[in-house]
């Protein structure tokens, strides 16, 4: 397979390159790269004028739902959704059935991933911290790491017991894997379905106060400092937690954080329609929290953008708000929301955006940096930063369509992804 990518703008933060060039790929490997390459027979030429070529994006927080919840999503449909959204790699969360707390589940996922789109999307399992994600007994982290887990989390639940969290941090550190925490104090948020604030007061819906996230992040940072280990905050949503992470980084601690596109786009006012696609955990917060998150993205406090892609079936979401499950899909709107809300509003440059989607998550997960050079296998995300498009959830490649952004006009969209010798055009 001979692919000639013509006139795209390569932005590669790792090498510092930012230039318009041609790239010739033969069977997925970069054969030639640089000044214009003449088209020859047998080559498929793709015009990429105005498009950006970046190192492959990775979404480090995705729920692929398989094994156990295939009616919501399968590894195949999830990977297709990822590819369509512009990702060449995802980290899948362990709240499957059975949970990813045994190496057999890791192997199952890996084999399914290889069969999906011929292995185009790399699936890196994030295994459970505790057996069954129950928060009581440590999962066999050594075995899981050896099988291929890149990190550990009990997401959608927190590791609630401080002693378990301390021991987990110590243990995982032996294999140089981070613990990723879904920070939520459970008794404080019991019965809660949205952020606690004026909107929840007016709507008569039970609220989850932002401090329930902050107190756990504060505790975990102390534990990480005490044990000298690596800690990552999943889907951070509050001003309080952002400030805690900022201070921790300033003290030189190995603390990192991620944010979802919906948390820098929507406030809890979006819930006033009672649309169950505005129900997620952590919930949509206030304007002040968004302002703090935007600052955090700018000054590096927030390292990563990850979607927390959480597919749910149509029927599951077609119920009264308090009863609906938490979560929305996000793989196919991530680039659009990020360009529209961050790049176009001057919060981040395109270069910085690529760091949040590719360079930083790989660094945190200790995955090798993507090299874009002659002789290397291509691992690329190609996106159009200017195209305007209207979100249509019914057209999503994901099996589930639970998104609040239907009908919204966005700027920026993936054009295609190339990885492991495979190509996917959106």
């Amino acid at each position, binding site marked *: 397979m001979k692919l000639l990518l013509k006139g795209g703008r390569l932005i590669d933060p790792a090498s510092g390159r930012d230039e318009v060039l041609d790239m010739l790929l033969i069977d997925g490997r970069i054969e030639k790269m640089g000044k214009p390459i003449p088209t020859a027979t047998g080559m498929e030429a793709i015009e990429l004028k105005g498009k950006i070529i970046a190192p492959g994006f990775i979404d480090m927080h995705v729920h692929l739902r398989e094994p156990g919840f295939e009616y919501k999503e399968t590894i195949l449909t999830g990977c297709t959704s990822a590819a369509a959204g512009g990702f060449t790699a995802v980290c899948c969360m362990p709240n499957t059935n059975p949970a990813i707390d045994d190496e057999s589940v890791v192997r199952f996922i890996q084999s399914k991933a290889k069969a999906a789109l011929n292995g185009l999307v790399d699936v890196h399992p994030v295994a459970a911290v505790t057996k069954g994600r129950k928060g009581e007994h440590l999962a066999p982290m050594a075995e899981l790491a050896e099988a291929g887990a890149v990190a550990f989390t009990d997401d959608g639940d927190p590791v609630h017991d401080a002693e378990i969290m301390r021991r987990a941090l110590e243990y995982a550190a032996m294999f140089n894997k981070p613990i990723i925490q879904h920070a939520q104090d459970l008794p404080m948020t019991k019965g809660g379905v949205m952020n*606690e*604030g*004026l909107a*929840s*007061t*007016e*709507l*008569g*819906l*039970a*609220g989850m*106060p932002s401090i329930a996230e902050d107190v756990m992040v504060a505790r975990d940072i102390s534990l990480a400092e005490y044990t000298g280990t690596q800690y990552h905050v999943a889907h951070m949503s509050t001003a309080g937690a952002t400030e805690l992470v900022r201070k921790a980084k300033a003290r030189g601690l190995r603390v990192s954080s991620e944010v979802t596109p919906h948390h820098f786009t929507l406030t809890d006012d979006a819930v006033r*329609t*009672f649309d169950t696609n505005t129900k997620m955990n952590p919930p949509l917060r206030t304007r002040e929290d968004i302002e703090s998150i935007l600052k955090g993205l700018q000054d590096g406090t927030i390292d990563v953008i990850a979607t927390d892609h959480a597919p749910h079936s149509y*029927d599951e979401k*077609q*119920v*009264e*708000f*308090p*009863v609906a499950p938490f979560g929305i899909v996000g793989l196919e709107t991530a680039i659009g929301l990020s360009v529209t809300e961050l790049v176009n509003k001057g919060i981040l440059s395109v270069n910085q955006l690529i760091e949040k989607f590719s360079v930083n998550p790989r660094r945190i997960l200790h995955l090798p940096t993507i090299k874009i050079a002659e002789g290397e296998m291509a691992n690329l995300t190609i996106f159009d930063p200017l195209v305007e498009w209207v979100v249509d959830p019914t057209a999503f490649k994901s099996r589930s369509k639970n998104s609040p952004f239907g009908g919204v006009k966005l700027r920026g969209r993936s054009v295609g992804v190339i990885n492991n010798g495979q190509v996917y055009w959106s």
Partner: protein
Amino acid sequence: MSKADIQLILDTAMSFREVLERPIKKVPPLTGKTIANMFFENSTRTRFSFELAERRLSADVLGFQSSSTSVSKGETLKDTARNIEAMKVDMVVMRHSASGAPHYLSQVINANVINAGDGSHEHPTQALLDMYTIREKFGKLEGLHVGIVGDIAHSRVARSNIYGLKTMGAKISVCGPATLIPKEIEQLGVEVYHHIDDLLPQVDVLNVLRIQLERDAGRLFPSIREYHNYYGITRQRLDRAKRAVTIMHPGPINRDVEISADVADSEHSLILQQVLNGVAIRMAVLYLLATRN
């Protein structure tokens, strides 16, 4: 709801009050119309009140009672309602424990939906009948100071009363233990009191809310005894206030918890008038909805 709409409902209810005094308490406007009362939460008085209002307007009534949520029952709310609508029901009156359930329902069925109380969100007909009762006694709503005491955080009666009374130009204050006052409620334009003895001398009317015994004792407040001692409306407390405060209560009353028996039965209490006015208000709402095009 605009001030004009509230005014219309209150005035129309006045005309329906007369019907309730007749020997034959029945008028024909909703003849041949079918109304389904879907009560997913336990309620005797509101259900009776709606049913009475519907029958007095000559409508045919379907009663549906279920104390479980849709999820535990197996059939979703949407399917239950769609099935009932398929039987050519013209209107649905719904009470549900989930805030926002009527909004959701009105999107999935074509029939008119009347909210008889959804979770902690709203209870519009209760607020309307409260306003009617106050207006009946004082001749106006504007400029009055109305207090609401009780578990404000979980009260749909409180929320609807706040919206309604503020729209009509009254001043509202809420009172209760700090753990039962919801966050940022001052932004709705109400004053917050934690000590009932401070509030009582200032108000014309006090709406006393039922305290939910089952739900929150221990976690949100220590005990019934403590609540009664610090917030219970008793004769002594009213005498201390040295002001003839009119007392209202949406019912059902926990005698000697939030209100003492002698106050509930006293000349200051409008509790029974509220009940009668409730039927008239509901007749007005049903009539106006059915005839609006």
